[in-house]
């Protein structure tokens, strides 16, 4: 039941942000599926396993990256249209909020702590997002070189 609620709300939230940014209507289903999957995996990793939160964010962003790469080529959409609405769920809003909250409460140690955590999470999301395009580009390059060698032989 818990997981079902997560799938539902993760998808709805991604579609909701796609409405705000006026994404094309034909992309709504794709965005919903990508958002639901990435959010659910992120949630399971964060709340049910004792992994570092950075790993959970990395895996969530990685799933967004790989699905966006696949769907963008399948449906001829720009990758950005799929990535932007799905990524909003993973944004470390809680940490950013606590950075400001502790600053207001004059708890500067806590504020710097949370600020660094926000920065780290954002960096790991970026790394996760770029894993798939990087490896895909490398594999394509290897294929191209091999083909060229075959042709010359």
């Amino acid at each position, binding site marked *: 039941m818990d997981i079902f609620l997560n799938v539902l709300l993760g998808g709805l939230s991604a579609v909701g942000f796609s409405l705000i940014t006026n994404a094309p209507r034909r992309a709504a289903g794709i965005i919903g599926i990508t958002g639901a999957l990435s959010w659910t995996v992120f949630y399971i990793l964060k709340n049910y396993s004792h992994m570092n939160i950075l790993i959970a964010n990395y895996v969530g962003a990685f799933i967004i990256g790989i699905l966006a790469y696949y769907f963008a080529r399948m449906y001829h959409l720009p990758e950005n249209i799929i990535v932007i609405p799905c990524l909003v769920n993973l944004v470390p809003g809680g940490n950013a*909020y606590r950075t400001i909250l502790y600053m*207001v409460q004059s708890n500067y140690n806590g504020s710097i702590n949370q600020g660094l955590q926000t920065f780290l999470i954002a960096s790991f999301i970026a790394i996760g997002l770029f894993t798939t395009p990087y490896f895909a580009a490398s594999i394509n390059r290897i294929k191209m070189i091999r083909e060229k060698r075959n042709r010359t032989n």
Partner: protein
Amino acid sequence: MKEITTNKLPENKLSEHELSDLCLKTAYLLVNGGAETYRVEDTVERIGASLGSDVKCYVTVTAIFIEINHKSYKFIKARLGGTNLQMIDEINTMSRQLAVKTMTADGFKRHIDHLYKYKRTSDFPFTIKAIGAGFVSMAPMLLFEMPLYYFIYCFFVGIIGYTISYTLSKLSMLPYADLFIAGFIIALLGILLKRVGLITQYHTIIIGAIMPLVPGVAITNAIRELVMRHALSSMVKFLDSLLVASSIGFGIASALIIF
């Protein structure tokens, strides 16, 4: 006048002046729709290639430069901000059709002119956008494992925050003030809900409700451009998203300090 010039030239061939205008308009629309700069450059150069000219394009966030066939240069001023993913998709689809010759240069030009004139594509009505904002603000509640009635409060507070930001950004030219006020009112509503006794703590409500205001497009584009080594536009977008985030944050902070 336009009819005569297009009739004289063979099909799929625009004059140099028309082509440079077309490229500038396309790039302007893409930048205003929220595309990454390297994608804008790539798309425009590809359009030039499929129309049989050598086009070079350089895009920063505030200006677009175009060179056609190594001799005529043009530039146009652009502006930061605005998001319209539909626009990007439409232009992307059209340039793809242009490349495989299922769309003529004339038809493409007419479409771009139309888009440039009205600066808008099909858009969702505001009520649907607001409901979308409500759903966006519900997702963080799951993470903190809140009881179910928190979801409902957060849904409405998120809608109110987004509505305020949306209306104020339409009314005023000052860019970050609407976000400051929206953040202030969200925090105010959270504190009010606690004072009335409907909820036990307001932090999660605030975290959820600011989610629709997060500069998602700017952050994503900044990261992607930085990785593609378009450092200039990336830094501009990064600074913009940082300013947006901190204006929301200071809005919340002032509400927390006052009440």
